[in-house]
């Protein structure tokens, strides 16, 4: 992979409540982390919602200082996380795409490692980093995806497979680098709450595509940032985010069933769906 065929998508979805300074700071962390890479992606694609507040925040930022090819696109439709990524993916014109949440960071060698691994393993369709999970105050929580390199964990050392995913759902897609055509072909993320990432990984592998964990800490993910999607699931009183253990179980089971279908069947939760 050369510099010209990776686009990094930064979705801007639930930022209305974030103050201007914090918004700027978080964006700065994300973009600076890309910029520090010697091997840079061809393009950074910011997909934002059509909202004056966000527009104003982005407008006021000096994006040129990062030395990156940054493009902003506006999604006029639904702008939750999944829709933003699916929308952006259709505007990606490079062979590979990746997602960087705007409050996360990539390591300064991540894209170089991606380049090396894409060249070494052209048969692999998705590369995942070892993720360094941190708290909002940057405290180390743990690593994700590293277990795939444990002996006998999956069928082949370093490669995620369907059997392993069904047994072990905690594979993080944070920072994944995927062939754009495949992401679009299998219809991207579904409107499944909580487990949409997991369902996507199951569906990707069910379709016979191959993934690999690059054995490098390539991505720093802030767990449970205030106002982030998963924080809202845990803490929000709003109906759309309300989630009790029963619902969580429902969405886990849904992921394990829905991955067999490439189309989004827009599953909704009803109280009597979960057997006791």
């Amino acid at each position, binding site marked *: 992979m050369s510099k010209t065929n990776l686009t990094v998508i930064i979705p801007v979805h639930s930022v209305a409540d974030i103050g201007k300074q914090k918004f700027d700071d978080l964006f700065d962390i994300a973009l600076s982390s890309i910029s520090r890479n010697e091997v840079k992606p061809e393009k950074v694609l910011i997909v934002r919602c059509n909202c004056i507040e966000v527009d104003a925040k982005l407008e006021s930022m000096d994006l040129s200082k990062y030395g990156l090819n940054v493009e902003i696109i506006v999604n006029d439709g639904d702008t939750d996380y999944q829709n933003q990524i699916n929308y952006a993916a259709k505007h990606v014109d490079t062979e590979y795409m990746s997602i960087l949440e705007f409050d996360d960071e990539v390591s*300064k*060698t991540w894209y170089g490692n991606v380049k090396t691994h894409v060249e070494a393993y052209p048969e692999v369709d998705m590369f995942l980093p070892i993720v360094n999970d941190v708290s909002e105050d940057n405290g180390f929580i*743990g690593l994700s995806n*590293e277990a795939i*390199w444990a002996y006998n964990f999956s069928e082949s050392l370093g490669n995620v497979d369907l059997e392993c995913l069904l047994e072990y759902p905690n594979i993080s897609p944070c920072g994944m680098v995927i062939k754009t055509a495949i992401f679009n072909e299998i219809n991207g993320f579904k409107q499944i709450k909580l487990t949409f990432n997991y369902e996507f990984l199951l569906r990707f592998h069910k379709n016979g595509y191959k993934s690999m964990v690059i054995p490098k800490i390539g991505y720093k993910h802030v767990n449970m940032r205030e106002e982030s999607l998963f924080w809202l699931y845990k803490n929000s009183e709003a109906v759309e985010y309300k989630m009790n253990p029963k619902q969580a179980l429902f969405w886990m089971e849904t992921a394990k069933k829905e991955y067999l279908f490439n189309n989004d069947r827009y599953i909704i939760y009803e109280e009597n769906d979960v057997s006791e």
Partner: protein
Amino acid sequence: MEKTNEIVKNIESAISKIQNKEQKIVFLVPDTKGNAKSSVIHLYKQALTLKNLGYSVSMLHEKNDYIKVGSWLTPECDELEHLSIEDNNLVVGASDFIIVPEVYGTVFEQIEKMPIEKIVYVQSFDYMLEAFAPGKSWADLGVEECITTSNSLKTMIEDTVPVEDVQFIEPTISNEMFTLNDKPQKPIIAIYCREARKAAKMIKSFYLKYPIYRFVSFKDMHTMPQDTFAKNLKECCVSIWIDDDSSFGRYPIESIKCNVPVIGKVPNIIPEWMTDENGVWVYDENQIPEILSSYIKNWLEDTLPENLLNVSKTVEGKYTEEIFEKNTKEVYEYLFNKKISKLETIKENFKKEVEQNEQN
């Protein structure tokens, strides 16, 4: 007079055989039972080099059920002539040479009276001493020639054993097998300890102290055919080496050639190639788990120091097959010429003695 002529004729015939490359060169080799063994690799490589130079080479082993090395080394090793001591059909003469590894030092007692030229091959100083009776050495059994693997070992032998002069042939590391991997390295730790219990201790200690790195696998590098060994070694991100008795250190050099840095314990005899640039060397093996955890952290984060990223450069151009073949040729030609001189001297002395006896 007739007998005198016959003896002189025999000596001249032996000289002529050596001059015409008709002498037998016999390497006594231990049975590795199908497992790779560094010292045996070195002997077979010399045997192959001499064979390619047109000499008649045989590998002598103890038992008839000897397992040949072709399965783990190279198939051409099996094409060398193999003789078993059990068969009792080794016929040697004054023109012939036998190369005996230091561990078999006691063999010299059994072959003391044989007219063959005896050469002891020392690859381990400790093993050499173990084979001696107190106050005795193979020099007392008429062994005048010794070959070893490094200049420092040569000095140590010369300081200890009253031998005339010691030659050394540095081992060769295959430039074809031990190369940089064409794929990125993996979070796998290659481990090679002379004592298996030390490897087990190291692994357990590492996982207990650093459970976060339990996903990093260890690969024990013993008992593998050489090509599989090289393939496995080059995909690892680091090597662990503990071998107090090693005098050359084939394993770490193979690792370094593959650009896999070594975290190792400094052996009793410090190898000449060992520098700050090609590994992390400690005197206390208990420090290794901690150093390893730090290494793995830095490897995962791509923050290793520059020198550890390019360790293969520290042995670039060294231990090549070209150097080894040249060195082997020179050392053995030197020994052959020395033998010719010895025989010439014997012949002259014998003639003089006979003349003197006739005059008397």
